[in-house]
């Protein structure tokens, strides 16, 4: 696995994938939907797969002395590592967002509940995009379209919770530190879903990939 991750770093990941990690900077834009920075992450993951496909990465990896499913495992790990890194990089920008403070009328505030929801969105995107890709290991447009639509629907649902009047509205959209700290269960649930769906994503993708002719 270590060697495969080295391969991903050295050959598969493009420098722009790292550049996209810096986009949580957008949390400092006033009145801008917080989720947008993370939509770009999905685009970054699409580029990762697109470049790998054009460079015949699946073929190269299949020649290496590894189990066929290991290359799926390595890719799922890389995808989730990039997502986690982006969220970690978000932390200082989220803190800055509240301390400057930045006025945001455009949707949920980048608080703990927000990051919980964002982990959930990554989980859903991974599930649809990766399992869709590994059905053929070369068709990438349709999986992106389906994962994109599902993710947008997820965002609509998540944003509705702070837009449409409901008992949790002010709790979820809070900018007050004491309230934000009480949001930790949402973050925990988000992370749990992200990890569990990540594992399911790997299992389904690996099973599908086993039957693919490289």
């Amino acid at each position, binding site marked *: 696995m270590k*060697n495969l991750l*080295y*391969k991903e770093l*050295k*050959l598969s990941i493009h420098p722009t994938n790292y550049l996209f990690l810096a986009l949580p900077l957008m949390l400092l834009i006033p009145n801008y939907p917080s989720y947008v920075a993370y939509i770009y992450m999905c685009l970054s993951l699409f580029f990762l797969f697109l470049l790998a496909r054009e*460079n*015949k*990465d699946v*073929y*190269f990896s*299949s*020649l*290496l*002395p*590894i*189990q*066929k499913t290991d290359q799926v495992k390595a890719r799922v790990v890389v995808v989730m590592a990039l997502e986690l890194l982006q969220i970690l990089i978000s932390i200082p920008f989220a803190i800055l967002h509240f301390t400057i403070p930045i006025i945001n009328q455009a949707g949920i505030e980048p608080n703990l509940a927000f990051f919980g929801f964002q982990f959930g969105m990554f989980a859903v995107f991974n599930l649809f995009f990766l399992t869709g890709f590994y059905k053929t290991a070369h068709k990438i447009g349709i999986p992106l379209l389906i994962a994109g639509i599902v993710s947008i629907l997820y965002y609509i649902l998540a944003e509705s919770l702070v837009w449409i009047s409901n008992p949790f509205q002010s709790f979820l959209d809070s900018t007050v530190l004491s309230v934000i700290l009480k949001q930790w269960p949402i973050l925990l649930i988000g992370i749990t879903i992200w990890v569990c769906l990540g594992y399911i994503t790997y299992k389904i993708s690996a099973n599908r990939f*086993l*039957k*693919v*002719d*490289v």
Partner: protein
Amino acid sequence: MPILSVKNLSKTYPKFQLNHVSFTLEKGYIMGFIGRNGAGKTTTLKSMMRLVYPHSGEVIVDGLDFNQNEFECKQKIGFVLGGVDYYPKKKIKTITEVTKRFYKSWDEEAYLGYLKRFELDQDKRIDELSAGMRVKYSLALALSHHAELLILDEPTSGLDPVSRDDLLNLFQELIQNEDKSILFSTHITSDLERCADYITYIKDGNIIYSEDKETFLNRFLEISGKQDQLTPELEKHLVGMRKHRFGFEALIASQQEINLSSYEISKPNLESIMIHLERD
């Protein structure tokens, strides 16, 4: 114990079927895998290595079942499927740097030796290499981890005559000095005349012969004669007959009861056998 044993490998495509492919390669020998373009050579090799998902069949490498021991089996195999064409914008040294980490017995000295022998420059990008150089790089990677079995798909096509000669010499050196075994597919039959010990012949997804080269070559005689010598009785025994203005030429099984003394008889080479078998 054979180094490689393939049993009943099958794979069905909408328009092509690999049909219960079976053959065995003993340690220390070279097997030529021949057949026309599209006969199923590459599909067989890819199915063996699980690049293609076979519907049934078993591949045993040095006593280990490939399906259950993919990692160990791949360590023992050097696999070349044409030239390197992945990551074309990366330098040779970058790809080697990544690849070598996967092999327990990577031999840097041997690798540098092959680079020198094949005149490969480590600082060149893959897309700067010619087709022949890409095959050579692919070979250098496959040969540098002390693989016991080399599976090579058309390793000589795209090489100039000097490089081909050098490569065939290298194959023989590997067999003689290091007890390796080689399975290589090709349609360049003269390469096999020179170095193969065994021939496995595939036609339309079926293995029609898999035996030592001498037995295979002795199976048939090349026969030619005048038009009036072509009796219906004789015609029944001919393989891949071609009629021309002066008569006919064909193959005939060397073991049969017809008296051939009035015909022109010669010993066919691999190319001639292949052409006649495919004409049938």
